[in-house]
């Protein structure tokens, strides 16, 4: 099984599998690992599938957009994904639909990433364990579901570690990327401004 984005890209360049194949596998993981509570809202599968098919065509023509083309990702629930609920895992914002992509989301989409859905988190980022998720759900650590995955970007870490997505965008004010990355055995980066 491939483990990284770069490795995946090499396989897709070689034609070992297509972005659509990868999406099907990842979506299967999403379905079979719901007990981890990694996601809040999922996109419509058919919509993502169309984007994957467009990526298929680019690889077939030898014109992929880059290493991120056709890579399934998740986006933390406090970052806008156009058309999806953006609630920061709070029922106070239930029903609020993002009218546009956040700049981060837009840049990843422009690079060919397949956004699968929004990742669970501690409500409004006010937590460090992923135990105060959307509607009271507790995000589970894929290494051992009896353990917490760290927070507040809990669903981001859980979705990546369990291969429901190959990467995720979280947010970090006081350790909300670093801590879940640590707890789930991943690599995380809190960028500086700019």
């Amino acid at each position, binding site marked *: 099984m491939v*483990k*990284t*984005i770069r490795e995946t890209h*090499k396989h897709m360049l070689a034609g070992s599998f297509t972005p659509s194949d990868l999406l099907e596998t990842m979506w299967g993981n999403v379905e079979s690992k719901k007990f981890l509570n990694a996601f809040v809202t999922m996109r419509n599968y058919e919509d993502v599938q169309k984007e994957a098919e467009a990526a298929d065509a680019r690889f077939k023509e030898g014109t992929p957009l880059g290493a991120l083309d056709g890579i399934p990702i998740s986006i933390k629930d406090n970052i806008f994904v156009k058309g999806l609920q953006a609630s920061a895992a709070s029922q106070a914002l239930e029903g609020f639909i993002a009218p546009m992509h956040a700049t981060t989301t837009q840049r990843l989409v422009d690079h060919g990433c397949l956004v699968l859905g929004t990742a669970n988190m501690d409500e409004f980022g006010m937590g460090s364990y992923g135990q105060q998720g959307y509607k009271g759900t507790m995000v589970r650590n894929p290494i051992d579901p009896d353990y917490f995955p760290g927070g507040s970007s809990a669903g981001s870490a859980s979705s990546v570690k369990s291969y429901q997505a190959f990467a995720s*965008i979280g947010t970090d004010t006081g350790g909300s990327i670093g801590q879940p990355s640590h707890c789930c055995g991943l690599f995380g980066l809190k960028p500086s401004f700019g």
Partner: protein
Amino acid sequence: MNGPLCHSPGDLHEIFKAIAGEDAQDSNSVDFSSLNPESYRDRSRVLDDSMIDLSEDNAPNLRGVTIGVVEEFQIEERDPRNKAI
């Protein structure tokens, strides 16, 4: 601050390259492009290819990178799996 979570430093590099830069929608965002390259390099050295060996996908390699460890977080682990890391 938005940032990536991935399976390897190389993957972080790929995602960060895509999202980095000034965000016109964010008044807290800063345009670092006007800084001289040396200054920018100092700030971003952890993602500099010369500092991290990104040649092997599955070999996260931080050789040569200076890291800091916050001692307060180094609690006595109760789980032997954590000790093995």
